[in-house]
């Protein structure tokens, strides 16, 4: 048993290391290699790849697909903020007012996940169709006039607009926001709130000084869990968007599967990952990793 005390981590980490090694690090290394290759198509349509440190795969593709990159981060950011605005009150209510309904409410939050992601998104095609009740109702209350002016929708329709894409991303990742928020809120000792009220804090002040700071780890986790997959998402833009709402995920998907241009697809994937890493580093710094790790 001495070896266990001396090196307890090794054997415990082994499954995860094997798993990530085979399914993450090796493919990553392979992708890094691919991203520096050149494609040739020969006279029989066969594609050949030669490794020649082709760094222009990065520069060319970044400049060509700049707008899709920017759009992806913009859509993901809006969807993350929207998800946060919807999820925080929801998580708050479940955590503090849920009572005996807590488990049922949580079940309802994850219930949509029992349906396939693609099916859920396809259902939105019907919900947002040009003649659907939703569209006609929003048009009747002049909502679409406003969104048309803002450029979120156009021609008084919802489907195939940026609004549809961002809303669906918000919806599809909402649970990833709600659950971490709920966990961090649930852990807050209600006596802390009572104490703050005893000390003459009003409810708003108590929330800002006690609840919100203590829930920051949930905010941090929830926003990352939403923002990261949302940036790389392509299903929503594919199914609910138009040619001007295509995101970087759509480009990578078509480069991989339609073009078979693996070098360009790999370069774009790496670029996306690099930007994301920088973003997370900055974000962690801003939100304060200490608070995140101490609670």
């Amino acid at each position, binding site marked *: 048993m001495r070896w266990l005390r001396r090196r307890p981590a090794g054997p415990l980490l082994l499954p995860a290391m094997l798993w990530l090694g085979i399914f993450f690090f090796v493919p990553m290394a392979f992708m890094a290699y691919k991203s520096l290759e050149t494609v040739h*198509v*020969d*006279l*029989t*349509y*066969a594609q*050949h790849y030669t490794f020649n440190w082709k760094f222009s795969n990065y520069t060319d593709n970044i400049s*060509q*697909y700049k707008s*899709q990159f920017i759009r992806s981060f913009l859509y993901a950011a809006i969807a993350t903020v929207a998800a946060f605005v919807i999820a925080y009150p929801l998580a708050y209510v479940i955590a503090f007012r849920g009572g005996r309904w807590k488990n049922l409410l949580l079940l309802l939050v994850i219930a949509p996940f029992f349906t396939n992601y693609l099916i859920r998104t396809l259902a939105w*095609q*019907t919900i947002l*169709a*040009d*003649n659907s009740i939703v569209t006609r109702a929003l048009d009747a209350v002049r909502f679409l006039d406003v969104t048309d002016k803002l450029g979120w929708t*156009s*021609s008084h*329709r919802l*489907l*195939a607009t940026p609004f549809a894409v961002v809303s669906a991303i918000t919806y599809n990742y909402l649970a990833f926001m709600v659950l971490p928020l709920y966990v961090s809120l649930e852990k807050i000792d209600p006596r802390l709130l009572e104490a703050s009220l005893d000390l003459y804090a009003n409810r708003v002040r108590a929330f800002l000084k006690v609840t919100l700071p203590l829930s920051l780890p949930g905010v941090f986790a929830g926003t990352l869990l939403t923002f990261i997959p949302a940036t790389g998402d392509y299903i929503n833009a594919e199914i609910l*968007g*138009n*040619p*001007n709402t*295509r995101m970087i995920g*759509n*480009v990578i998907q*078509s*480069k*991989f*599967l*339609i*073009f*078979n241009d693996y070098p360009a697809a790999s370069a774009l994937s790496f670029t996306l990952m690099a930007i994301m890493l920088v973003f997370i580093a900055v974000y962690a710094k801003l939100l304060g990793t200490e608070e995140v790790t101490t609670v």
Partner: protein
Amino acid sequence: MSNERPLSDLDRMAFARGALTRRDLLRRAGMAGGALAGAGLLAACGSSSGGGSSAVASSGGGAPSFPHTVSSNWTFSNWPLYIDIKNKTHHPSLDAFDAKYSTTTKYLEDIEDNESFFGKVRAQLEAGQSIDRDIVTLTDWMAGKWVALGYCETLDKSLLPNVDANLSSALKGRSIDPNNDHLVPWQSGFTGIAYNPKLTGRDLTSISDLWDPKFKGKVTCLTEMRDTLGLVMLDIGIDPTQCTVADAQKAVDAIQPHVADGQIRRFTGNDYAADLAKGNVAACMAWSGDVVQLQLSNPDLKFVIPDKGGMIWTDNMMIPKNAANPYNAHLWMNFYYQPEIAAMVEDYVNYICPVNGAKEALVAKDPSVANNPLIFPPQSSLDNVNVFKALTPDEDLQFNQLFQGLIGG
């Protein structure tokens, strides 16, 4: 059918289809020496081109050998809405086949787009693995690519007497597969304009009509590059049967403003059908057979071949390399080429049937289909449609790059 159909004209089109000289030359070179095609096969297996001298099965040669025994199940991949259907789940033609040969057909509707389907199975084909399908159905240019790459099995013609007897002569001797060694046509179809007169408020006759500002955001084009570029080329006076990269650029430039200002709602595969039926789309580029089917529940919908010309294409059944049940696949191909079975499929599918005698088999049963000009087209329609030029690999890449840039990367 051969009495009714203007075969001389279809023959002329077949000849036009035969305009792909470069690939032809290569294939013949392959047949003669095996060197070039051998290199292609090696490349297909993932190694670099080495000028191998191995014999190449894909270039003809002797009949392939496989056991002539019926497997208990086999898999047929096709496009959505592309076979007869009853009670939403039953395909009578397949049921008849299953009953006759005591087998179970796994029918997949998983081909929505030639490129993305190829993308999905390409790695397995390259690695010489089975793609777990015994028949796949791909459009001319993609089928030709598979033939050239050696990704499909050579057919055993002794098992296909009905194909030999009943294949429309227009579809024989196509340059993508001159001796019909690999491909068995499933259906042909027109690409033109579909519209909902209730939403457009008028009849449409040309691609330019799609750019009417009144239809802003209610127009879709196709993700099939050859269909969308072909129709637009015809509209701006370019011949898609012999276009250049510069011509493709012109067509892309003609479409670009309509993408930028939101005139074009989406680029679609078969899914434009749902948009058209739901009223999301007023007018779109469409495939003739889809529209015939949509008309059953939306009789107002119309399909026209643009006055400046439409496109025609054929989808072909083929047996992917290393398929597990080639015998069943052959049996099905031969079974389908009986006029009465083809008529069963045709009665539902409504694209252009490649099986001689199907019209006659259908006239008594369903005269409305047998006399539908979109299914058994008149001379004037056939005069006004074109087959997209066979692109060289280099052109293929450049055309696709231009087109992908247009539809958003």
